């Protein structure tokens, strides 16, 4: 039996090859899956991955759906690099949407150019405020931010549900659980007439560049990276752990909040009980598939966005259930984590020389010092 052997140094090649391997394995699994379900696999692939991009409108939708993934993804990647595991971007997304929606509803009768910027600000602050709770609890009481951020997702979603079914329900909305539609001055302008993709996509691209600059050119980015990779070294160097936790959560929360704002002030145009097909959670996959690198996050967002789109066309053209999107996301993450083990380990073929007398289970590899 070949066995795993620790590499002397992590493999850079595998670091970049791993997402590609995962994507290929995802396609192979998809091939088998489609075959089992009685769909012609190649046709299904075409429907899933090519057809959505054959129209201008489709491309617009592709970029539109990638926008929240990019925004949440770069924020999470900054946090994950510093080992601050915010997995509740979905909740911060929701709170950003609520805060921005609150501004929109409050100024419903006002028509002014400053409303949209105010909504953006509210969205960012809403996401930050929601992320500040786990930041405070972690720095003050040493609670685990993974649990707290996750639990707050459900609190945020229930809060949104309460608002749209109660105080913020549209008075002329026949009791449907939704708010008034936002006015024109309260919605993001679209990039190209006829498509739904809006300026938030451009903002997301700019933020990719900013986050790259922050992570690789600024000392503050270096500090966070050290905090993530070697906490003792960070303490020795005098980098504050509290500042690290606060910064990571506020940045990722703020970006998720902005994404939430862009969603309700964009394609949705109002507050509803459900405003996201799980963008905040998919962004976790985006961050890791993108190797926590801003450019990687951009590419991974486009891939995951395509999975959302493909899932929709597959529902329409192939009568597949909507769960197909989540299934592909899960398969992708699964293979990615599996392939990632080869960054630090390699396969060692079983010894085939004459010393066959030694037949024992793999020994723990001792280090040599």
């Amino acid at each position, binding site marked *: 039996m070949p066995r795993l052997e620790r590499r002397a140094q992590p493999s850079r090649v595998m670091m970049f090859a791993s997402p590609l391997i995962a994507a290929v394995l995802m396609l192979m699994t998809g091939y088998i899956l489609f075959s089992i379900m009685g769909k012609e696999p190649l046709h299904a692939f075409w429907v899933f991955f090519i057809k959505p991009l054959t129209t201008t409108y489709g491309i617009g939708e592709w970029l539109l759906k990638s926008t929240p993934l990019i925004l949440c993804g770069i924020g999470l990647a900054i946090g994950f690099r510093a080992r601050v595991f915010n997995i509740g971007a979905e909740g911060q997304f929701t709170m950003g949407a609520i805060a921005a929606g609150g501004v929109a509803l409050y100024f419903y009768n006002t028509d002014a150019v400053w409303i949209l910027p105010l909504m953006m600000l509210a969205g960012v602050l809403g996401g930050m405020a929601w992320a500040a709770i786990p930041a405070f609890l972690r720095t003050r009481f040493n609670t685990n931010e993974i649990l707290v951020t996750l639990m707050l997702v459900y609190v945020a979603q229930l809060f949104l549900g309460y608002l749209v079914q109660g105080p913020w329900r549209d008075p002329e909305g026949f009791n449907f659980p939704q708010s008034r539609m936002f006015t024109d001055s309260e919605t993001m302008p679209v990039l190209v007439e006829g498509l739904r993709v809006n300026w938030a996509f451009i903002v997301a691209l700019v933020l990719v560049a900013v986050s790259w600059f922050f992570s690789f050119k600024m*000392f503050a980015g*270096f500090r966070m990276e*050290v905090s993530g990779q*070697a906490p003792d070294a960070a303490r020795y160097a*005098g980098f504050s752990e509290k500042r690290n936790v606060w910064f990571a959560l506020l940045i990722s929360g703020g970006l998720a909040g902005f994404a939430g704002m862009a969603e309700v002030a964009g394609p949705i145009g109002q507050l509803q009980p459900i405003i996201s097909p799980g963008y905040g959670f998919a962004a976790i996959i985006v961050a890791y598939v993108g190797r926590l690198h801003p450019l990687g996050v951009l590419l991974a967002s486009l891939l995951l966005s395509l999975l959302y789109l493909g899932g929709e066309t597959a529902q329409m053209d192939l009568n597949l259930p909507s769960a197909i999107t989540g299934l592909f996301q899960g398969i992708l993450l699964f293979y990615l984590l599996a392939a990632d083990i080869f960054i630090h380990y390699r396969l060692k073929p079983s010894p085939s020389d004459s010393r066959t007398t030694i037949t024992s289970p793999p020994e723990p590899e001792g280090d040599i010092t």
Partner: protein
Amino acid sequence: MSTDTQTKLPRLELVGITKAYPSVIANQDVNLVVRPGEIHAVLGENGAGKSTLMKIIYGVTKPDSGSVLWDNREVHIESPAQARKIGIGMVFQHFSLFETLTVAENISLALDSAIAPHELVQRIEEVSQQYGLPIDPHRLIHSMSVGERQRVEIVRCLLNNPRLLIMDEPTSVLTPQAVLKLFETLRRLAAEGCSILYISHKLDEIQALCDKATILRGGRVTGTAIPSQETRESLAQMMIGRSLPECQMAPKMPAETRLRVHQLNLSTIDPFGTTLKNINLDVRSGEVVGIAGISGNGQKELMAALSGEQPMPKGTTTQICGVWADRLSPGQRRDLGLRFVPEERLGRGAVPSMSLRLNALLTTGAGDGLVNYGLISYAHVRSFARDVIEKFNVKCGGDEALASSLSGGNLQKFIVGREISLQPKVMIVAQPTWGVDVGAAQIIRQALIELRNQGVAVLVVSEELEELFMICDRIAVIAEGRLSPAIPASETSVEKIGLWMSGAFVEAKVEEVQHA
């Protein structure tokens, strides 16, 4: 004894042992013969392959090729349990004891066969009396000193009636007095016919204790010797391939006080940490002050307090170059000129997964030009890292090599070099040469002396008394969280410092304060 052991058949024989790891050949064609009742030294620098060889004998690691002969029969030792079964015991350098359990509980956990508790207690007492290893079977481990813990480990091995006992660097945690006691025990064991493999890089110990020595360098055997018939120089020659280097240190008058700590009391939240009690310390410009002591007596806590990693309590007065520094963070203290090299290199002094270049950036401070307006100046960082690598002869794959790819000694050279190159006014170094080979140790020591000559205040914490006497102007001792006064190295002796290491200075304090 050496003459009659020659005649007996070997108890353990290694023939052509080779073991390669992905990045290094740890052992190459190693032969070793240990006879009954022989105390056999395995001498070599860190990284020479001693530990790997012992792990092979003890069944932790399997060799790639070569054979192990036990009582003249070839054996394949698959596990430590099997090694213990055929009569091999090993005392590791780092103990494997549960701190919250008693001695007897710890020992019963490690026994391969079950013994009734009362019977075990009785046997522990018997063995500990027989070999002069006094321990109380009912004591909890966390309340015991390192020396006592080592006794527990030895007793644990002896309960299995070993015929070969492997001791891995046993004296690195002991006072000079405790070392003498240990030697008595080992000699008694050997006289009863137990063979002992004694791993060390300390030449004087090996000369005092061992009948034979096998010397390793770079994974190969470079010679065998009878230590008592060799000189330190000839042994060193075999161990490091050249003669022992010496430190050059001219007398120097110290100037103003650069680091002052008064009445530092620091309780610890770590149940196994040490509380610092009323620490007073002055380090002046142009002197090296050494702190001796057995590890675990408060060194870690004192270093963390001085570096700023552990906030100082109210009531302490700390001054760095005349500036009040009690509440300052590590970064602010660095900007005052305080530089610190911690004991742990990987993970604290350097980020393992980052390149040397980025690690050069770790302790950047105001005015060094590596960071401007919050932006990293990669050109400066690169040239700085290359300077350090060149000046301190760091053996590595260039400034882009990962810190984790360097040997302990080379990484230490890099970290010391980094801190020295950033113009310290006060330099604090913990265990400067721990795990560093003799040649590199010399470079580091000489660099510290040069700092002193340039007027830097240098504070060194070390467990190696020999080293402290080599480079220090004054030496203090830390024991149980208390610090003795620092007295001139020329006015004290290894024996006296050794005595103080067990806490005896508390009584002698009044007299010594006047002395200093």
